[in-house]
């Protein structure tokens, strides 16, 4: 999952320079620079209509960019048709050929390139995706998960420099999706081909990819390793779209040192200065953020026993839902609105019920701050829709 880990690489890198796509007056993708390193698992993450699929199709050659260039392994392929690019695609809903059996579907790419003896390769590839016995079946006789594996085999057999995956798991149910995520990750590590994966499922992107580019409205909002994006979101969209964030309106009281001091309502909050992505001088408005699982709850009576130096906010439990591994609380903080808290069910305090007066507290190091000049709810409802 880390950058330093380089699998034996047979893949190529993808370089997009100033690439954009407009349809009439609608801009699907704004000029965009992106580099996908060879052998990496790269995810384009975003809600529907954010331009991620269009970007993928421009790499495949199925869509002609309005401006900019596409380079594969250092070669400019912008004007090449799809059948001349060393790139293969796993389509959404797979697009398997209904008139050919599984064997011929997988052999299709080899045959088009004039390779005569395809038997050994096709059988090896069907074994890799565990579909050997299904070779003579038709696509419509296979389950969704099996069709998905055929689509992967049909693309991989050509040893492309880059494999493009367009929401390949979208049509599968949750359990199968989890299973296929691990399966795809295993295959990618095994073959070492560069994977570019388009998805709207943030969990899927984080589980599978080395690098995630979060797209919104035809632009890349932020790019980085999953943990980096999750811990240090640069925009409210990323903060809300990747998991859940509590964002609090605050004002900078003290800046300059290693730490920033903020005032939110009547409370004082502290955070490391390097975790503030906005310019912060005294008096500036910022959005302070903290993830729900980083926050702890203490009953108001026990507030005195809390360790020094933690960020605290007083509130009242509005709602508590028990979901097995954790309990999710909605806490009403006067003057600041509702905050979410996820507590693991280790030592449950019987007093933490709706209506109870409590204190929220967390380690200041887990606080981040964003520019207050943006929509505080950006990406929040999209995430629910996508999940």
């Amino acid at each position, binding site marked *: 999952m880390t950058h330093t880990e380089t699998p034996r690489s047979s893949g190529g890198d993808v370089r997009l320079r100033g690439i954009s796509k407009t349809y009439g007056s609608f801009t699907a993708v704004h000029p965009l620079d992106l580099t996908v390193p060879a052998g990496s698992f790269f995810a384009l993450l975003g809600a529907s209509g954010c331009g991620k699929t269009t970007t993928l199709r421009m790499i495949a050659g*199925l869509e002609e960019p309005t401006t900019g260039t596409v380079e594969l392994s250092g070669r400019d392929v912008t004007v090449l048709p*799809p059948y001349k690019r060393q790139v293969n695609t796993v*389509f959404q809903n797979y697009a398997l050929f209904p*008139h050919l059996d599984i064997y011929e579907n997988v052999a299709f790419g080899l045959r*088009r390139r004039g390779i005569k003896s395809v038997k050994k390769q096709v059988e090896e590839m069907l074994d890799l995706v565990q579909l050997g016995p299904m070779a*003579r*079946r038709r696509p419509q006789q296979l389950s969704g998960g099996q069709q998905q594996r055929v689509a992967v085999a049909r693309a991989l057999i050509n040893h492309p420099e880059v494999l493009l995956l367009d929401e390949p798991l979208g049509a599968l149910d949750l359990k199968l999706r989890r299973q296929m995520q691990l399966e795809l990750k295993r295959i990618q590590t095994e073959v070492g081909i560069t994977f570019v994966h388009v998805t709207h499922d943030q969990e899927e992107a984080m589980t599978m990819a080395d690098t995630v580019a979060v797209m919104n409205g035809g632009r890349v909002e932020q790019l980085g390793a999953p943990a980096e994006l999750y811990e240090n979101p640069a925009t409210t969209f990323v903060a809300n779209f990747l998991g859940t964030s509590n964002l609090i309106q605050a004002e900078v009281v003290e800046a300059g040192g290693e730490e920033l001091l903020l005032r939110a309502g009547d409370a004082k909050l502290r955070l490391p200065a390097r975790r503030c992505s906005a310019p912060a001088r005294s008096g500036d408005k910022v959005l302070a953020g903290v993830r729900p699982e980083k926050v702890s709850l203490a009953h108001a009576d026990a507030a005195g026993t809390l360790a020094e130096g933690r960020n605290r906010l007083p509130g009242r439990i509005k709602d508590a839902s028990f979901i097995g591994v954790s309990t999710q609380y909605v806490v009403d903080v006067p003057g600041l609105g509702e905050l979410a808290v996820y507590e693991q069910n280790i030592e449950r305090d019987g007093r933490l019920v709706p209506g109870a007066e409590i204190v929220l507290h967390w380690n200041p190091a887990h606080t981040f701050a964003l520019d207050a000049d943006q929509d505080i709810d950006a990406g929040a409802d999209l995430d629910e829709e996508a999940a």
Partner: protein
Amino acid sequence: MAVHETTRATAVRPPNRALRWLRRHIVTIAGLGTLGYLILPNLVVMVFSFNKPNGRFNYQWTRFSTDAWTDPCGVADMCGSLGLSLEIAVWATVGATVLGTMIAFALARYRFRARGGVGTLIFLPMAMPEVVMAASLATLFLNMGIQFGFWTILIAHITFCLSFVVTAVKARVMSMDPRLEQAAQDLYATPVQTFLRVTLPIAAPGIAAGALLSFALSFDDFIITNFNAGSTVTFPMFVWGSAQRGTPVQINVIGTAMFLVAVLCVFVGRTAGKKRRQRS
């Protein structure tokens, strides 16, 4: 108490049982009835092909004979007209299928100015009374000074077969996932290979349906042919003509043979399809 109820139940059962039987089998009965209604005329034709009529009309059963079957071309000009009809049907099918498939692809795939208008015009021959098309085509040929005969019949047949081919193929092309062709291109197929290896095979059932319809329609067309044939005589025209003067048994022989060939085609198609499904 229990005994009493049982007796009452048995007492009511007889009419109930008949009703229940009827309810369970009504669909089968209706189906068989419809099938009989459709097939009966063919059976009559078949039976009378083994007749040896007294006189020129083959309307009354006299006695069994295979004379007509052993000498199917025994009637003057009949086999000539049959050959002509088959020839026209084959060429009309080829012409209509090729043109119709191209039109269907154009209508399904491209947006152009007159697309809606063309769609309606293509549909018109199917909706229009045949005699209207027959008369207008005849007027057109006459005004252009074209000699009536084989070519005018062929042109007329292609004209009305086109609509059926376009309708059948268009439905198939419209329901085809455009991503299949993109997938083919993504897998190194050139545009020509994509068309031959993916588009055409997937559209094939629609094209075949259109071609079969064309053949059947062309072969037995009478009205339009009669207006545009001049002195040329196709098989349906021959049958019509001879019906005025007497009906030779050979007409029943040809009719029966056509029916059997059609049944055979359907049967072969079915078993081939079943075999393929079992194999896979």
